[in-house]
């Protein structure tokens, strides 16, 4: 899952929510791959590889806010997510301070932060990771 892919789905979630009747919407997506290797006493105890993605969607309708989350980011999944968030907002208590903040100067472009990214991680083999865990 690339950053562009995540952004596409985030935009699609926001557009879908606005079309479904939200005054404002905010999508928060997280995607990642991980390998977890647990070693105890030099012995591998547990290893799990994962590849995950999920979306939280916040919508404003008047002074009410609704929130729903899903890992199903197919077009049908995003439609269902938006419908859930909208439907939940109807039951939220009215809050005069509720507001999704406007982002000044945002043009939708997000650059991956290079200083937080260790290029070695991308090519880390399972065998190498195991070796590091055993140290």
């Amino acid at each position: 899952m690339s950053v562009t892919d995540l952004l596409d789905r985030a935009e699609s979630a926001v557009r879908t929510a606005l079309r479904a009747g939200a005054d404002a919407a905010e999508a928060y997506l997280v995607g990642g791959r991980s390998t977890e290797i647990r070693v105890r006493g030099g012995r591998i105890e547990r290893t799990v590889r994962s590849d995950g993605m999920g979306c939280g969607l916040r919508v404003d309708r008047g002074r009410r806010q609704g929130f729903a989350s899903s890992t199903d980011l197919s077009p049908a999944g995003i439609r269902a997510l938006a419908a859930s968030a909208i439907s939940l907002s109807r039951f939220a208590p009215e809050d005069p301070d509720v507001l999704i903040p406007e982002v000044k100067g945002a043009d939708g472009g997000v650059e991956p932060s290079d200083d937080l990214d260790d290029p070695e991680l991308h090519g880390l083999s399972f065998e190498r990771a195991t070796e590091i865990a055993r140290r």
Partner: protein
Amino acid sequence: MSLPAPFRSLLDEAALEAALRTARGTGAHFAEVFLERRDQRSIGRREGRVETTTASTICGAGVRALSGAGTGYAWTSSPSASSLADAARAASRIAAAGSPGEGGDGVRIAGASAAGTEPAGPGSLGDLQSRADYLEELDSLARAGDARVSEVSCSVGEEVRTIHVANSEGRRTTDEQILSIVRAAVYVRGAGGTQRGQYGGGGREAFAPLSKGRLAPGAVAGEALRRALLGLDAREAPTGEMPVLIGNGWGGVLLHEAIGHGFEADFVQRGTSIFAGKLGERVASPLCTVVDDSGIAGLRGSYRVDDEGTPARRTCLIEKGILTGYLHDLLSAAALGMEPTGNGRRHSFRTPPIPRQSNLFMEAGDREPEELLGSVRRGFYAKGLGGGQVDIVSGRFVFEVTEGYLIEEGRATAPVRGANLIGSGREVLMRIEGVGSDFSFDPGTGTCGKDGQSQPVGVGQPTVLVSAMTIGGTRL
């Protein structure tokens, strides 16, 4: 067998078969794909208004591979033909690298096939408005029930879960599991301070019929209020060792916590269970028969197949005091050379299955509960239990008593508050002196935690008399 509807837009059977072949082709002797979709929703009310609503969907796939050396697990929350193939390769590589799982080394799983189970029908979460109306009615009935009610909080939670299991032994099974739960807490203010009474219920039933039947708003509000009011009149709890009568239904939570985990075969394999190596031996009073049954329709811990696709069944664990079995998943059964019991459960597709309890209970005896009560000169009646702390390995526990009474000359007299039951599962089993005929399951609110994984479970028992237990009270 075609995939259940929630997965059809993501992948097809051919993708599953390919993933299984990929894992096998890279050295695994056993491979399994687990698909899961779970839609959850809840609505909660506090301070006279709806305060929380939640909606979440998880959808994903987990691939497990066993090779001669170990177990590998990989999952994806974006299931597709390619992500499943990636996961299958990863799981198989992990297994080949010798990462041991609970099954130990070199486990072979034979005959893991089962007849396909078709889902019961499309589950649906219904409309939120009717849940909001239900909670409002519950709230107002509780407040109308007594002038001393100061606060009511209540919630409804529902979920629909669809799973599909395919493994390299030819198993293809599907199950759809629905779950509903209602919880209410009523607070009353009186001379003795503020007291809280809690009640709730649920099960693998749709909310609508439950809310018109045993969980009608008035029934839930009334029981929570009754429990809260008892606290206002309660005395300080006694301290010391004495005969204890444990109430039926939810009282079985003590059994679940203090001994139930000892039946789970992963603890038996590691030798940490109090029941390890004791099959055929006396571990309890001859009055005591303990069973786990995942196949009872409607109960919170029930299913048609477990999370490895093994059909639900009844497993006798203690028969008239003799240890007769353990709770297995496929790996523990293979490792110990026993039959799988359909107790392989997982929190979600993100974790491999482990042996878990489903609905674990003590069967009814032949004594009238009144007769058991009448036989105690001085003792303690723990009619309702709350939360507890248990050391799963030793079975030592401390349980909070939410509804307790002194027993004086064969009668339950004053309600007491602040009491704790203290003891060990092993001792309690041997000290069971009387088992009532009033068996009941709990109302359906139990959730069990193990290794960071939570599972809905059922518990149950009749009224049980234990000859001696320690009451940790507030009065010396």
